[in-house]
């Protein structure tokens, strides 16, 4: 039942990532995992907030079901985005997965303090990275029940 439903269901993912290589790797990993998700990539925190609030060129952007958020971003960094999202009554229900290179304890603690839904460190090895992206997809798309739009 679940898998049937998941196959028919397409979810919107917002990937906030300034490094095009990383963004590409994530997209590749998702393609490898054969996920039929729509992924939107923005490169910094300002764009992320505009996307979420459908401002500027994102006037007709869909409301994402999941946000994959890097922490170190130009202009407005990931922590600020996280804080704003979780403080916004409209946006706070959108799950935020912090996906970052940092393994620093203070980043982990800070992210959870700001109500990140989970914190994932990107592994260097491609195989592991792909496995993790697949797991994220599987978990957030197929396992959990997300709030309706």
């Amino acid at each position, binding site marked *: 039942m679940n898998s049937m439903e998941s196959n028919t269901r397409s979810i919107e993912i917002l990937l906030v990532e300034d*490094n095009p*290589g*990383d963004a590409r*790797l994530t997209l*590749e990993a998702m393609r490898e995992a054969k996920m039929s998700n729509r992924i939107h990539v923005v490169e910094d925190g300002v764009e992320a907030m505009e996307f979420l609030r459908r401002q500027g060129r994102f006037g007709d952007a869909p409301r994402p079901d999941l946000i994959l958020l890097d922490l*170190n971003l130009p202009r407005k960094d990931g922590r600020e985005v996280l804080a704003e999202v979780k403080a916004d009554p409209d946006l706070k229900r959108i799950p935020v997965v912090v996906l*970052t*290179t*940092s*393994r*620093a304890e203070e980043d982990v603690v800070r992210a959870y303090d700001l109500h990140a839904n989970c914190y994932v460190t*990107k592994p*260097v*090895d*491609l*195989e592991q*990275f792909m496995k993790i992206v697949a797991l994220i997809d599987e978990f957030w798309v197929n396992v959990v029940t997300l709030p309706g739009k």
Partner: protein
Amino acid sequence: MRLTVKLPAVVVGAIILTAVAGSVLSILIGRSVLRQATLDDNTHNAELYASAVRFYVASARSVLATTAELPQLRTLAGPREVATLVLAHSDVFEYVTLLAPDGTVIMQEPRALEERLSHRDLSFSAWFGEVRRTNRTVVSDLHISPATQRPTIVIATPVHAADGRTVGIWTGALKLGELSEIGSLAVGRSALGESGFVTDRRGLIIAHQTRPNYVVSQTDFSAVPSVSAALAGREGSGENFNPIEHEWKLAAYRPLPDLGWAVVYSGPTAIALASLDTLTRSIVWASVAMAALIGTGVFFSTQRTIAPITRLTIAAHTVGTGDFSQRLEVPSRDEIGRLAEEFNRMASTLAEKDAQVRRRAAELARSNAELAQFAYVASHDLQEPLRMVVGFVQLLEKRLADKLDADTREFMGFAVDGALRMQNLIEDILAYSRVGTRGKPLARVDSAEALKDALALLASRIAETGAEVDAQLLPLVMADRTQLVQLFQNLIGNAIKFCKDHAPRVRVQAVHEAGRWRFSVTDNGIGIAPEFRGHLFVIFKRLHTRREYPGTGIGLAICKRIIERHGGEIGIESAPDGGSVFWFTLPEENST
């Protein structure tokens, strides 16, 4: 006690002590001098009084003796005529009486007293008996007069007829008041309560310059030492206690041997020496005033002297609390002035040093912050490019799987391997730098618990290699628990790793040394040749190829950094059976 109080107290104490000693001395000397002077005075007065009494009695006797020869008496023809003559021309007798040989009164003049005679037979009187017995002039003891009913002294002399027969006894009663008076005439009254008195041979007072009632009441002074001495025939002077008057007297005494009487001239010691009290009081008051004056002076001058010291104390306290801007005026060139100068110099130096320390602390804080920033950069920014390299090489490998020859595949493997190793090194450097920047304050830690945690982290490798780790009782130490766990983990991990063919055996021990614990981790591994031991704790130093024993060579460098942060030492020795002993020291639990 504060100096401003202590110094004046010492000075005042010294003055009072001196004053007390001075007054005690002057009182002793003054007392002895004054006493002697008073005694000399009294002796002189006693002498005068005694002469006056002697003269008075002698003249009374001669009046009686002379008139007893008169024919009017010897014939008993006109005794009253003679009596009137005696009373009129001499002032020594109160009354005169002529007795018959049997002791009855023939006549008494003045006649008024004769009429008041209680009885006319005086034969029982002691003096009458004595006159009859001795046939000579007799001076009686003090007795109550039958005429006046008052104490009196009678001089009695026999009256002889022409044929030598005793025809009567001719007597005169002495005016005892006169006897008291002549003392005053002879001596004058003293302002110091001195007075003279005369006793009869039994010690009864017969004349007293100031206390006539002693005569009236026939007071017995025989118990008074000066009286008894004089009655015993001695003359002299001294201080003695008068039991009748209950006071100490400075007394001079003279016997009157003819009469058996005593003459004493005396005054209370207290009054005689009273002037000394005044003197003493003057000295005491003067010294109190002087002490107060000088004490006040010393107090203020001490305070003036102390004031800079007090200011110095306050300033030193302020400096002690960390305010090094404090400076003192240097008001004088004396020792205190120099002290203030030195204090100012010290405060300046401290202020400089403090500024230096603050600058260094700020630098240190900045460099620590930079280091933390570096660590963060290392963990994040340096790793991202590496992930790109690894990720895309691997992606290429994956996508082109069937089109790559063996060489290309191997080269791509080296590229990925190099990048992965680079990433390990970055993480190790990060771990190494975090020993200093992420350390927690040292606290009481049970090293046995830390070892247990380390063994839990190593559990899978211990299981794989079949290693045996045994630990003896381990102590409480002052340590950062996380770092202690890492230390054990690294050392025991090494011990397990560097063991070739046999099962590793590791022993952890601790012995107490002065103020610290010396831990040792002994293994049965491959051991380390002494010539390599010097570089063992250098970061990324390896003694083997990665193929033999994997690793970056960071473990022991981290151990060394942890131990140094704990103020301990770390080193290596050979184990007896060829393995290695890594030892390190940690502060004991109760040290700070």
